[in-house]
């Protein structure tokens, strides 16, 4: 872009606005995390100050780890997220390959059918999904959640991956065919490794809503053994609402893993969102 428009006051103003908004965005997270490390008195007396050696106290974390079964909740969330992600990526990539690679009757119609779920939220089907899960005995199992999240993630995954796969060179695939590779080998050995960046983008977009979802764990799997960390934190905080140390510690425990993952993958995520533009 042109340099003519850049001037010192303008860029200083831009920094001021952006910095101000960054503070607004980060302040609540910051205040929760610093206060979770303080004693009860300090939380109320000096809520804005970071913990000092005098006010440092881990009593909140001790309560959380003693009372709530957070390790179990983390494990549940982890299993559900990873399994759903695996199925979304595998099934989504397979369907996307079929749609982008072969001409067959009803190809476009199938693409349209699978894309419907991008606009219509699966939540509206909850009443019948619960009946289905009751009928098949899957209520209060992680399987129920994995199935629902797989269905939820598929439309977008198919849609994005179809676009990426149609960009994979035909020559490469045809060379494979001439060498006698089966269609399955072509898909798993040639095409999948080439669309890995797109798969990573889809993975990040699929993962965040699954990890953060409250609705389906609340309705399909609220039992103690199958609670996810989002539901676990929600219920724990609801019970301990007057124990500020415990509530702040529980919130921090729920924030930190997502935050760390995000900082590791933020480049990937942001590139995924802007990749429509940045060529």
């Amino acid at each position, binding site marked *: 872009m*042109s340099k*003519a*428009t*850049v001037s010192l006051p303008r860029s200083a103003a831009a*920094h001021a606005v*952006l910095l101000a*908004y*960054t503070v607004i965005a980060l302040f*609540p997270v910051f*205040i*929760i995390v610093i206060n979770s490390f303080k004693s009860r008195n300090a*939380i*109320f007396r000096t*809520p*804005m100050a970071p913990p000092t050696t005098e006010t440092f106290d881990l009593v909140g974390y001790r309560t959380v780890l003693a009372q709530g079964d957070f390790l179990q909740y983390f494990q549940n969330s982890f299993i559900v997220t990873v399994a759903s992600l695996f199925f979304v990526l595998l*099934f989504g990539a*397979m*369907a996307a390959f079929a749609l982008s690679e072969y*001409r067959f*009757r009803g*190809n*476009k119609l*199938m*693409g*349209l059918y699978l894309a419907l*779920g*991008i*606009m*219509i*939220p*699966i*939540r509206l*089907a*909850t*009443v*019948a*999904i*619960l*009946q289905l899960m009751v009928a098949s005995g899957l209520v209060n199992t992680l399987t129920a959640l994995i199935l629902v999240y*797989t269905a*939820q993630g598929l439309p977008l995954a198919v*849609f994005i991956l179809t676009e990426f796969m149609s960009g994979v060179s035909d020559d490469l695939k045809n060379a494979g065919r001439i060498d006698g590779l*089966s269609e399955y080998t072509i898909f798993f050995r040639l095409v999948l490794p080439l669309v890995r960046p797109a798969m990573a983008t889809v993975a990040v*977009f699929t993962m*965040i*809503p*699954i990890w*953060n979802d*409250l609705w389906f764990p609340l*309705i399909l799997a609220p039992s103690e053994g199958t609670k996810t960390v*989002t539901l676990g934190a929600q219920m724990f905080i609801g019970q301990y609402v007057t124990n500020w140390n415990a509530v702040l510690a529980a*919130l921090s425990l*729920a*924030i930190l893993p997502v*935050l760390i993952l995000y900082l590791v993958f933020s480049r990937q995520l*942001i590139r*995924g*969102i*802007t990749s429509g533009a*940045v060529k």
Partner: protein
Amino acid sequence: MILTLHGSGPVGVRGNVVRLDAMKAFYVHAELDRDRAETEHMTAPAASKRPFRWHIAIFLAPAVLVYTAIMILPLFGTLQLALFRNIAQSQVFVGLDNFRTLFGDPNWSVNFWNALRNNVWFFIIHMLVQNPIGVVLAALLSSPKLHFSAFYRTAIFIPTILSFVIVGFAWKLILSPLWGVAPNLLDLIGLKSLFTPWLGKEDYALTTLGLISVWQFIGIPMMLIYAALLSIPDEVIEAAECDGVTGMAQFWKIKLPLILPAIGIISILTFVGNFNAFDLIYSAQGALAGPNYSTDILGTFLYRAFFGFQLQVGDPNMGAAIATMMFLIILVGVCIYLFLIQTRLRRYQF
């Protein structure tokens, strides 16, 4: 992308809006392309001789089966359940009676219209606050040679990745009069007298929650508009500068018209996300959406009707009726967008 997804997690779904763009072309040309594909299919002699290609079916089967069984069939199942009622332990077809109850019986209709009104206000807050702030932030981020822009981008996006539960409780604590963080902050700028327990007052609670939700999701419009701004080719900007159009005039006359389609997509995704929102209200105010139902939206209303809460017994059929109404509202919104707004927005191909 929202998305959310929505439900489809809003984040999930919203983030990929850039590509949803392509979906339009997809919709419009689907028929045309299909016809063409079939003609080609018939004229190619090799194609007609080819045996049934099992691998296509095998590639498609898992996705289509899971999607159909867990999403499409239950969706229609829910629409169908709305036409039945449980009488003497068996489901009896009652036609549109459940909807008559929903609109006519004061026990239901008062709550329904209240939830719908609140939901519309919730959406209006998003449109009025989220989009302008998103545009300003994106415009600033995309200004040339801005230092630390990656840092700002990453930091402003952080609230978007947090779950509603965290966001709801964190703000509830911060705004709590017991803790005093909010009054302390207002005191710093000399406005302490303005403080009231916003989440606890009927007049302010919904607006406050709307603003909290905007705070959480501002990252999505910001990123999408940022992407749209980056995709404007340099030649267009240079041509504008040659004609002496710079600064604010350049933004209003050149860039804004070019990013209108992105704003359109953000609006429809916000619409879908807002009309099936639930988690934030449930975490911050509970299923009763207090104080006195002033923050009740369709999602929380559906939850109480279908699942039951405290003294209320759950009624799957009424729940299905409410879900059907939500489905229709979202469908109407999406159709208005696809057929009225989208077709009028001029798109530019570079």
